[in-house]
């Protein structure tokens, strides 16, 4: 996979998992986003999540989930896309506009530093906090092994 596809996948994921409020708060320190026109949405619908037991095996339908998607075009010609879980239309539009702006090599460094990296750090912190809370109540089943 080309490197820019990989890094775009990363920022789209971070924007999809962040809330609208969190993105908006980081945008205060960022350069102004270029104006955009909506191509599609934001619109909410259902997607079927499919899975495979054990990662192989036949695909089965796991369940449907609510997804909001948006596509915008920036006046430079870049098209930004966002697919976010839930029904927050503002988040989807903002994430799409940011995706479009991040494809512009002149805007990318500043936006990465002021928006994406802080959001990634906050997300990692939240994951670590949950892991610590879970670890505190962890039960170790070693009794049987030690009794022999």
């Amino acid at each position: 996979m080309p490197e820019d596809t990989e890094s775009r996948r990363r920022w789209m994921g971070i924007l999809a998992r962040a809330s609208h409020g969190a993105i908006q708060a980081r945008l205060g320190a960022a350069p102004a986003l270029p104006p955009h026109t909506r191509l599609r949405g934001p619109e909410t619908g259902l997607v079927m999540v499919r899975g495979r037991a054990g990662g192989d095996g036949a695909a089965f339908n796991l369940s449907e989930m609510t997804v909001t998607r948006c596509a915008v075009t920036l006046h430079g010609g870049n098209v930004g896309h966002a697919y976010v879980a839930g029904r927050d239309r503002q988040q989807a539009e903002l994430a799409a506009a940011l995706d479009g702006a991040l494809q512009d090599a002149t805007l990318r460094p500043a936006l990465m530093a002021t928006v994406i990296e802080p959001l990634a750090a906050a997300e990692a912190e939240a994951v670590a906090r949950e892991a610590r809370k879970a670890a505190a109540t962890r039960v170790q089943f070693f009794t049987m092994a030690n009794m022999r």
Partner: protein
Amino acid sequence: MMRPGFTAPVENAQACFRAVLDAISRPGRVQILTLGLTPPAPLDIATAAVLLTLVDAETPLSHDAGAEADSWLRFHCGSPMAAVGEAAFVLATGKPPALAGLPAGSEEEPERGATLVLQVASLEAGTGWRLTGPGIEHEHRLNARGMPAGFISEWAAQRGRFPCGVDIILCAGDRVAALPRGTRIEEG
């Protein structure tokens, strides 16, 4: 640059669907669409609106409209692209393919016949062809400029295959008219 589709997707698609329904129920009557749509060249407003309304992921599309329109149609309609002989909808902005080469359905499933969306130079009711048949009390007159030579005889030939055949939606600017397969056309 990618252009937007309908500004109000639900309302615009409903209005356009109604116009197409009226056009097909009254063959040769010209319907006028009032939509704010900026489709890519060479698509006219009516052509683009009809495609946005009728074509989706379950209807293979074949078209001759070029690269910009191709990416626009793929994005907004989400339809798979197919060869002319396998498409459910065929868009012709230039010279249309021969009617006999389009899917005509079968005796059991005549609804599988293709719909040809044909962009013409202009559509005017009241003069030109004399249309008779279902949905027309006495006769309707339709003047479609830019139709290919020999169209009338091609159309007469496909009437022999009824109920199989191809339906045509004519588009020009913001105007839509239809020629369902049951309609008889005579030179005026």
